[in-house]
């Protein structure tokens, strides 16, 4: 089945383009994590606002830091943020959504739905600020805020899918031999939601990065590193002085990576959709 999906994906030009872009950025992030690139992001290696030169390929920012280094480090930050938030919120959302869907219309389901409703109605940026305050500016405050609010969408989708799947005969067959509910959920139901989860995960990834940008503008973003969001925030003053280096580098990177991800997610969704018309 995954082979079929891969075949379909391969034939989608835009999708492969997206995959390539994501792969390249991921590679860069790996290099940063292993200490091979972007390590001098915080050092002041030049004078303020140097233009593009051989020693500073993207120039320098207001403090004289190398923009290229910062951009590279920002790639790692973007992936880190995206992966942590996506992983945690997807796992959490899937488990709660699956249980709510399986025991739908029971008190358990009602509690989870209520919980989801409450979280959904809190204005996100206020919530992020509150968490940052409560955790005394811990670098994980941002991730936590996102995880706590992003799981609800995944849970809602999984709940719907589980409610649909549990009506199918193969689930009845499992119940007929007496398999307990939890085993059925993990063995038979959840594997059939993976296609939806994958697409949802890529959407969350993009949302996480976008959110980090805005949080950085508010000063609630990355505390112990640099991210594209932070660079964009810095650049908001720089462009007034006529220096676009920061803005261009961070903006372009963000745009390219997110577009790559969106192309990939769309293509994945098409490739995994077995109901596509082939008659």
């Amino acid at each position, binding site marked *: 089945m995954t082979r079929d999906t891969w075949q379909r994906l391969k034939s989608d030009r835009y999708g492969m383009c997206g995959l390539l872009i994501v792969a390249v950025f991921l590679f860069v992030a790996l290099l940063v994590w292993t200490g091979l690139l972007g390590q001098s992001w915080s050092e002041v290696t030049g004078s303020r606002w140097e233009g593009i030169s051989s020693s500073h390929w993207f120039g320098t920012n207001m403090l004289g830091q190398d923009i290229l280094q910062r951009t590279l480090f920002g790639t790692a930050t973007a992936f880190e943020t995206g992966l942590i938030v996506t992983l945690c919120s997807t796992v959490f959302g899937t488990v709660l959504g699956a249980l709510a869907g399986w025991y739908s219309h029971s008190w358990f389901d009602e509690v989870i739905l209520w919980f989801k409703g409450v979280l959904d109605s809190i204005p996100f940026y206020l919530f992020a600020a509150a968490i940052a305050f409560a955790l005394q500016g811990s670098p994980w405050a941002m991730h936590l805020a996102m995880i706590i609010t992003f799981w609800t969408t995944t849970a809602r989708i999984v709940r719907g899918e589980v409610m649909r799947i549990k009506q199918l005969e193969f689930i009845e*067959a499992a119940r*007929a031999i*007496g398999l307990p509910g939890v085993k059925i959920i993990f063995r038979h139901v959840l*594997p059939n939601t*993976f296609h939806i989860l994958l697409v949802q995960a890529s959407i969350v990834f993009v949302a996480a990065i976008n959110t980090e940008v805005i949080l950085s503008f508010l000063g609630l973003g990355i505390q112990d590193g640099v991210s594209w969001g932070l660079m964009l925030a810095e650049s908001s003053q720089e462009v007034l002085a006529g220096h676009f280096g920061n803005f261009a580098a961070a903006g372009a990177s963000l745009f390219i990576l997110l577009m790559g991800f969106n192309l990939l997610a769309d293509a994945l969704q098409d490739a995994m959709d077995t109901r596509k018309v082939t008659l």
Partner: protein
Amino acid sequence: MNSPMQQPSPPLLEIRDLSLRFQKPERLIIDRVSFSIEAGSTLGVVGASGAGKSSIARTIMRLIEPDEGKVLFKGEDILQMDPRQLMATRQRIQLVFQEPSASLSPRRSIQQILLEPLQHFSIGNAEQRQEKILQTLQTVGLDGDVLRRYPHQFSSGQQQRIAIARALVTDPELLIADEAVASLDVSIQAQILQLIQTLQKDHGIAFLFISHDLGVIRQIADDIAVTYRGQLVEQSSADQFFSAAAHPYSKALLSFASHKPPLQPKGNRLRLGRGRTESDKAPVCVFARHCPEKVPVCEQVEPADHVIRYRNQHKAGRHCVKCHLYNKVNNHDF
């Protein structure tokens, strides 16, 4: 000679006064149904497509809890069993569904699908389980190399064979087939019916075969039970049913099934008939509304199960009809 202390062994499966009510809207889905199946025999349950027949199957498997009645497997009430007994019983009764593509878990390989019941019921060790799987595949006419593939890679006929293999792997004594051939093309249906016949003859498996298709039932059933709106309106041996069915509904079913060509256009106008949900409290015959042979008492009193005894070349046995027309008939020689 039977010693007075010896009790006849109970039938393999016996249903007594089973009733199931639906809450919203309030409807009686199973209405005081009773029948029994002897070991190794096949009971065909027929009736229009509807929830009653399938619900009986699900109640036997204890997927639904009925409101009243007993389900006795070899004399023990399934509905009263503790989890351990229930698990042991579930090994002996298995279910085959209508849609083969929907009854196999899409993301699991055939190996996993067939292994699951063996693992769940802790039958044998790893080696024995594998051997059992291969043996069962052979019985249903499939090769060992289907094991590493996935359900969607097979045709519907093959999928149904796999579903049957899954049911057989625990060595059940009773197989409940819920419209198991209804979705299959006629030539594939024939192949699956051949398989079922083999299971009946060579493996002595009893069947509760639910179907709306009388032709199919004719091929494999020893006895027949006819349902209408949740009630069992007639029960008899298959031969008796197909030669001398008694209940007007049974006769109607048989006439529809006899495929008389060609059609004579009729002039009846079609009414909407929206008010279908009627109260089941009214004590009338459930078929009275549509019955071509009804008499006044049919709309006043509910008929009881009348037994027609017969002695002729067919197997001498019980023939029960829930119809006022057979009220005065006893020991009737057909």
